[in-house]
């Protein structure tokens, strides 16, 4: 299965948020979307997810326009993590995860429990009593539970899943994503941590001011000139300097 945006533009009123963006995502590959604030990354995720229709161009899922699927059919093919959820009611974590699992299909109790323990969040706690990072973990578990066993028949679209997480849980989620990728699931992940992206992504799309700056395999795209052009700020390639550089090792 593949997911693609073909020549997609998006305008809100007089503002052009995306400008002729064309990207294609394949099953079994993880793509990191990187770029400064306001580059249009979240808008691209929403268009790929079919929440909004592009002003021009088309988004295709499995070679059909994404809006040609019913909401429930789409919910089985796309697990989408947004940046903010408004949940203000005292559901337990397992009840929240169950909302995703029951959308995905059979065995929702077992899938919920597996997803909770995989990301490392206590299913018995009440969502409204959790910290920001713990809420994020619960939401990640909900989205993963939605597409848990679907392998190459589903895509994950995640808007900044790692941002609120501590190092340990970042690595845990990264490990999970890598397992799901091994099952054939395509992944598009908005990130801010370039080094983490380098660790987990097969491909990288660099975006700036609503347009794609560079796209392709991670090694080819993550170069100093590309990053400086994208983020418009001077950078240095730390590995070649003598400045100490700390990072977590990726577990397998």
């Amino acid at each position, binding site marked *: 299965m593949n997911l693609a945006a073909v020549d997609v533009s998006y305008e809100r009123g007089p503002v052009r948020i995306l400008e002729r963006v064309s990207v294609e995502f394949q099953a079994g590959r993880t793509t990191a979307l990187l770029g400064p604030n306001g580059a249009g990354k979240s808008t691209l995720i*929403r268009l790929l*997810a079919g*929440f909004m229709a592009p002003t021009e161009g088309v988004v295709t899922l499995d070679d059909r326009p994404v809006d040609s699927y*019913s*909401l*429930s059919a*789409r*919910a089985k093919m*796309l*697990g*989408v993590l*947004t940046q*903010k*959820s*408004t*949940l*203000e*009611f*005292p*559901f*337990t974590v*397992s*009840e*929240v995860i*169950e*909302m*995703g699992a*029951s*959308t995905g299909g059979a065995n929702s*109790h077992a899938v*919920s429990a597996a997803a909770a323990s995989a990301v490392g969040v206590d*299913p*018995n*706690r*009440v969502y*409204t*009593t959790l910290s920001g990072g713990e809420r994020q973990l619960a939401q990640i578990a*909900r989205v993963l539970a*939605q597409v848990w066993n679907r392998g190459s028949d589903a895509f994950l679209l995640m808007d900044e899943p790692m941002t609120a997480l501590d190092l340990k849980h970042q690595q845990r989620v990264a490990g999970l994503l890598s397992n799901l990728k091994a099952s054939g699931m395509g992944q598009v992940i908005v990130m801010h941590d370039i080094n983490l992206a380098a660790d987990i992504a097969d491909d990288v799309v660099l975006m700036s001011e609503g347009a794609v700056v560079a796209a392709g395999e991670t090694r080819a795209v993550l170069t100093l000139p590309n990053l400086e052009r994208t983020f418009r700020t001077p950078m240095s390639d730390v590995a070649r300097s003598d400045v100490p550089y700390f990072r977590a090792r990726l577990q397998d």
Partner: protein
Amino acid sequence: MKPALQDGRSASRSQVWKQLWLTSLLFVTAGFSLMVGGSSIGPAEVMALAWGEASDSARTIVLDIRLPRILLAMLVGAGVAASGAVIQGLFRNPLADPALIGVSAGAALFASLFMLLGGTSAFAMLGLAGSAFTGGLLATWIVLIVGQRGGGISTMLLAGIALNAIALSGVGLLSYLSSDVQLRSISFWALGSLNGASWSGVIVALVIPVAIGFMLLSARALNIMTLGEEEARYLGVSQDKLRVRVILLSAVAVGVGVALTGVIAFLGLIVPHLVRMMVGARHEVLIPGSALLGAFLLVLADLFSRSVFAPAELPVGILTALIGGPFFIYLIVSQQKERLTL
């Protein structure tokens, strides 16, 4: 808010027990309520009635006055509280209330209009119920249209608040224009009272449990909607469809209730809060739990309102507002740290 700390399965078992417990509490209170009233017919006569050995006057008072009143309190209390639960879920806001989207005020305005224009016709009860329902529906329809134009949930809440003010000033204007007799019935009724309960009212109110049953069909969608409109779409739930369904059903449940008893304040706001503390937030248990607790609380409030100053009686809406208002403020203050946003 005190959480229910159980895993999925044991939680559902204790939830069932709590609902059963609440049900028995409701029936005990209702039975007790049957034995209390302005006249001196007490437990002995009510028991005698059960064996078919009571006087005609006792039979009339218990069967034609007290029983329909208690049944009406149950139905209306259940309708208002269950509507509160689904409206809060739809608006993803624990401070939302049927009154806030204009149902109650719209129903009140149209019912007052009916009282002023044709209140004494042969179909008075049906006409009153029908016009209140129409008013409630019209108000919610306007709120829905505004929401679809302006988009957001907060827009709808603000529209509801404005509509509320307009409708209530309309009721004020009508009472200014009315005769003394009409004025008394309008104001007595705007305060909320079960005084006018009759079997025909109970029969009309039977539409309320039907509406609650349909609300239950949307329980899973409402759970998912609390995650957010965008998140719900990604889980296959469309806000547009759910919004129409939920608002129509609460317009039925609340509009008919308002028509029969006037405005019962705060029940729709507070009962779902209490039920979430007891059994958690899943609408599968929240909706029936709210219906039960709402029924129980209105029977209890009515019992007080007609026995404290007996033989005179207090409009029950005054009592629910007097108790509900401070309790609501307490809830807001005690939940500050959970950053409730309106």
